[in-house]
């Protein structure tokens, strides 16, 4: 009888709302009510983030997080429950699955959920549907002006200072940190923002790439084109969040900034090692 009632209820909702209600559960609604994120009268913020779309996406990622990648997250208590923060992680796995999983971990953090923002490549807004959709779940093009305004509004931003150097690297280079850009450190200093380092383990094994088909990638206008499985493999992912790092005073030169960036990089390396030690099996 219960099923019949449920079917009846779904029947006059129409397929779209029915699907939405299946994915966006009351628990998810309750979770979002706790997230300190101001939005306008139609649920949008200035960068195109939309509460309803974000909820829907989170409902979808839930399955990936819990059952496909079987994520273990430690140290989430280090993420500030209020106020601005830069969450800085190592990047790997061809597709930005690491960003998605960190985003989910932050949004469902029992110590204080946060709607995190991610910085994306500049060509995304030109892609129909995908561009709007990425904006709606919180991604924005990686413009320092965007970053600055977001931090001033006390947002949490996920940053991969390695960029495509990290995500596009080959399987034999796994867990070797590539060069970090200095941009995040400048932002941290300008806007007095703590840096939360994260070590991601497991994403390297989701899409092991044996070669980068660079000429073809260039032809297609892509940053790289891996010779790898077409879909991410179900590797177990370990996320280790470290204590927030504060850097007092302004660095006098770019060299000094680099020194500070190296400290963050070193911290991330330690967190990766911790994740590698706690990992019992890859898949």
């Amino acid at each position: 009888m219960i099923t019949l009632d449920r079917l009846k209820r779904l029947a006059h909702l129409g397929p779209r709302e029915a699907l939405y209600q299946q994915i966006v559960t009351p628990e998810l609604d309750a979770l979002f009510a706790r997230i300190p994120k101001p939005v306008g009268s139609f649920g949008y913020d200035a960068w195109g983030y939309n509460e309803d779309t974000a909820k829907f996406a989170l409902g979808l990622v839930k399955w990936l997080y819990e059952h496909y990648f079987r994520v273990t997250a430690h140290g989430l208590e280090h993420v500030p429950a209020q106020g601005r923060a830069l969450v800085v992680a190592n990047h790997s796995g061809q597709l930005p699955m690491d960003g998605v999983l960190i985003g989910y971990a932050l949004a469902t953090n029992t110590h204080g959920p946060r709607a995190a923002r991610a910085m994306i490549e500049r060509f995304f807004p030109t892609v129909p549907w995908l561009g709007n959709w990425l904006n709606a779940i919180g991604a924005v093009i990686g413009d320092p002006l965007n970053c600055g305004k977001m931090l001033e509004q006390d947002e949490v931003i996920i940053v991969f200072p390695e960029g495509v150097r990290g995500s596009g690297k080959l399987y034999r280079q796994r867990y070797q940190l590539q060069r970090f850009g200095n941009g995040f450190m400048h932002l941290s200093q300008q806007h007095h923002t703590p840096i939360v380092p994260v070590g991601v383990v497991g994403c390297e094994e989701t899409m092991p790439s044996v070669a980068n088909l660079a000429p073809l990638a260039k032809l297609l206008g892509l940053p790289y084109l891996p010779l790898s499985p077409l879909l991410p493999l179900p590797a177990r992912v370990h996320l280790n969040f470290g204590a927030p790092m504060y850097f007092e005073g302004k660095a006098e030169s770019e060299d000094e900034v680099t020194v500070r960036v190296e400290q963050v990089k070193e911290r991330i390396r330690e967190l990766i090692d911790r994740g590698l030690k706690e990992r019992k099996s890859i898949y």
Partner: protein
Amino acid sequence: MPRSTPHKKTVLVTGAAGSLAKRVIARLHGSYNVVAVDFRRKVDTDAGIPSYKVDTYKRGFEDVFRQHKIDAVIHIGRMFAHESDRQRRYNANVLGTKKLLELCRKYAVKEVIIHSTYFVYGASAYNPALLDEDAPLKASEVTQDLVDSVELESLAQIYLWKYPELHITILRPCNILGPGVKNSMSLLLARPLAPVLMGFSPLMQFLHVDDMADAMVRAFERNQPGIYNVAPDDWVAYQVAVQQCGCRRLPVPSVPPVLPKMVSNALNWNAFFPPYLINYFKYPVVIDGRLFRDTFGWKPRRNLNDIFSYYRKAKLLAA
């Protein structure tokens, strides 16, 4: 002609036939002597408001300054793209403004409010959100048809820095909507069927024409020269706005980029979905209105739903 009361300031308002200017005039009337001009027609005004039909870029315009001791100018009058060809529009908007500013200097006008537009920032995929007033003006990069808007701005800016005694305030509002508003966006949302680009629904900001009129009067009365964005702290995706206004969506293929422009041209959508504005329906131009709000202590009193409900109701009445 009614004699102006000597102790009151005299304010010249251009574009008097338009919805915004009418509201500004109504708010000024009583506290100021208002002089109304428009290039389209001689506007019927309340008793005591002299009204002229005059092209601002022609010689006859100076007579208005000869006959009245103008203290301040609120320059709203603008020729829209659908009202004329590019040449006439350039003359009216750019040369007209140049002439106006020269006359302001010659007749020692002490305050000028210029009504610009957020279009000057240009719609590009690389735009960060919440553009500040010092962001580069890239509209002319996108299209020839917005050159007049950008040049009008540059001209006003030159006068702003060069002749501080003119006390020029440039206002760059977001989309203005409401009863009687005849800009592209308003004409578009008043239609039962509104074109949308498939796969693109940029964020937009909307302001009720009454709130904009309040903002202009506030800017005039507080007299804090400078350049200001005027926009609320609220955003909505274009396709949502279209549906909220009671329009049905007409999907237009967006790839390749020339296709929607060709469709707009072929179907003569120049008034409400012109080819040169296509990019504004593709990429967001979100401006930061904080400086204006903080400087002038102004806040819009009508929210997005109030704005959209006017278009919804208008459609219900027409049905």
